[in-house]
């Protein structure tokens, strides 16, 4: 039995034990794991044990929290202003009788951000279905079209409005980045949507879309994990979802247990990383470099 600092919340004890174990492992001199010359006959690369420890911990934490969420335990998520704004934007579009535009990025369905965007699209479709306003979804990649169609259809069906679903509103524009941007700008200028929701993987076309949307007077909420495009969204949009908040958006909107659980799990992993960073900075400041060396990947 490993003794660790006690917690007043018994349900966190198993995890605190795991974290304590990790810290003990990390403080061990890493020289025992240093390279053997020839690993071609080995079944495990000991130079990568640090990565394995982190992966096992991270996967375990996520699966644990997903199970907890599925058992009905409530999991708190802090308020994210940009995500509350989606509902406000949809409401404003309804008042003005103008459509909602959802742009799921320009990458294919095998990209994680597009997967996240599709999840959000389903939730937005459910929101929009009840208000009887059009939801336009211009698509950049052919493979994303059937996925988007299915998500929108499901959204409408789960809101009890399968009749309101219009397949023509999920529209393939072009594979080519700027041709797609020009097409979406055309939709913005002609149809004048009141709410522009830009979620997914964006590149150089992000500013074009955001600026054009601003000109039409739409409320704009954007979210991407492409760090290089965040400044443009911050400048041109009303709300910006930054980085991992994009992946949290689906959990935030749907409150689905598996999504909430994975969000909590990755939050805990981030907390552990922050602790390790702080500990590492302190130790290195006092000349203890073995701890830092454990994190080098060879």
């Amino acid at each position, binding site marked *: 039995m490993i003794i660790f600092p006690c917690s007043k919340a018994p349900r966190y004890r198993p995890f605190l034990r795991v974290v304590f174990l990790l810290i003990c492992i990390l403080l061990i001199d890493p020289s025992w794991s240093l390279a053997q010359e020839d690993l071609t006959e080995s079944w495990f690369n000991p130079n990568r044990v640090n990565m394995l420890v982190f992966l096992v911990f991270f996967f375990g934490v996520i699966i644990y929290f997903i199970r907890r969420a599925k058992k009905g335990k409530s999991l708190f998520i802090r308020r994210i202003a940009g995500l509350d704004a989606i509902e406000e934007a949809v409401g404003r579009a309804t008042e003005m009788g103008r459509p909602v535009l959802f742009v799921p990025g320009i*990458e294919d369905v095998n990209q994680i951000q597009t997967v996240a965007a599709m999840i959000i699209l389903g939730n937005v479709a459910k929101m929009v279905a009840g208000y009887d306003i059009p939801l336009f979804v211009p698509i950049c990649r052919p493979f994303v079209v059937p996925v988007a169609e299915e998500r929108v259809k499901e959204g409408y069906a789960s809101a009890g409005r399968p009749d309101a679903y219009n397949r023509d509103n999920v529209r393939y524009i072009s594979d080519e*980045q*700027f041709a797609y941007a020009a097409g979406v700008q055309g939709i913005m200028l002609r149809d004048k949507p009141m709410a522009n929701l830009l979620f997914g*993987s964006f*590149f*150089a076309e992000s500013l074009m879309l955001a600026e054009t949307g601003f000109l039409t007077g739409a409320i704009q909420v954007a979210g991407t994990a492409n*760090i*290089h*495009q965040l400044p443009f969204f911050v400048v041109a949009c009303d709300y910006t979802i930054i980085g991992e908040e994009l992946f949290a958006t689906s959990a935030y909107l749907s409150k689905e247990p598996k999504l909430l659980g994975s969000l909590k799990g990755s939050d805990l992993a981030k907390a552990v990383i922050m602790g390790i960073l702080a500990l590492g900075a302190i130790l290195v400041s006092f000349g203890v470099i073995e701890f830092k060396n454990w994190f080098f*990947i*060879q």
Partner: protein
Amino acid sequence: MRKFLEKLERLDRRVIFIFIGFSIALPLLFPVYTDFSVTAPVEGFYNAIEELPPGSKVLVSCDYDPGSMPELFPMNIAVFHHLLSRGHKVIMMQLWATGTLLAERAMTEVLEDFPEKIYGEDWVNLGFKEGREVVMVSMGTNIPKTFPTDSRGTKVEEIPIMQGVTNFDDVALLMNVSGGLPGTKEWVLQVQSRYGVKLGSGCTAVSAPEFYPYIQSGQLVGLLGGMKGAAEYEKLLGRPGTAQRGMDAQSVSHIVVFLFIFIGNVAYFAVKGKKKRLQVSR
């Protein structure tokens, strides 16, 4: 005066467009060639090639499209020129379909200064391969298996420069000219961190800040960020090109944007101040 300030605060963007247009076009037509210093990331990139023993094999991945050409094409030309002038062997490849013709054109331009260089012995173009990160990782195991032929259809095992090149252990340096995805980040994540190969990158200015952590951690030996990075690199090579020519345009346009921001804020505060005074007087 107040109306003028309010108009200034809500200036029609077309006025801004006109000023930006002139501020870029005029310096391009009448360059002054203002001097500038070279930053550390560019020096790192340059030194990485300088420190290679002559005859080293360098893999250059040209992953960009015509959109990012103004920033990356001068970089691409400068990299090829630097490598060939130092007697290194260039193995070029592309992970972007739109990069194939651009990379070929860059090499064609550079070869005008090196007519003695022979295809297959001094340089080779492995061509484009779809698969993004899968291709990168596959090259780490076996490059000839990933690229069985070059862009001209010749079997890789028949190409002299590719003799003895099995994976990244057999290349001295990997250079990436990157316009987006897949690009520098993927090369760092999938190749540099896994196989430990020396990696240098040239990228667009908007992406450059994202890669500073990789320079600090040593995962990138150097970084050319945008047209400025390309201009600094051209300066180090002593070979002024289109990047240096573009620096004046960039300088003037940045000053114009700065002035507009300044004017906008002056007008904003003046109008805000007037509104407050009006409210108080009521």
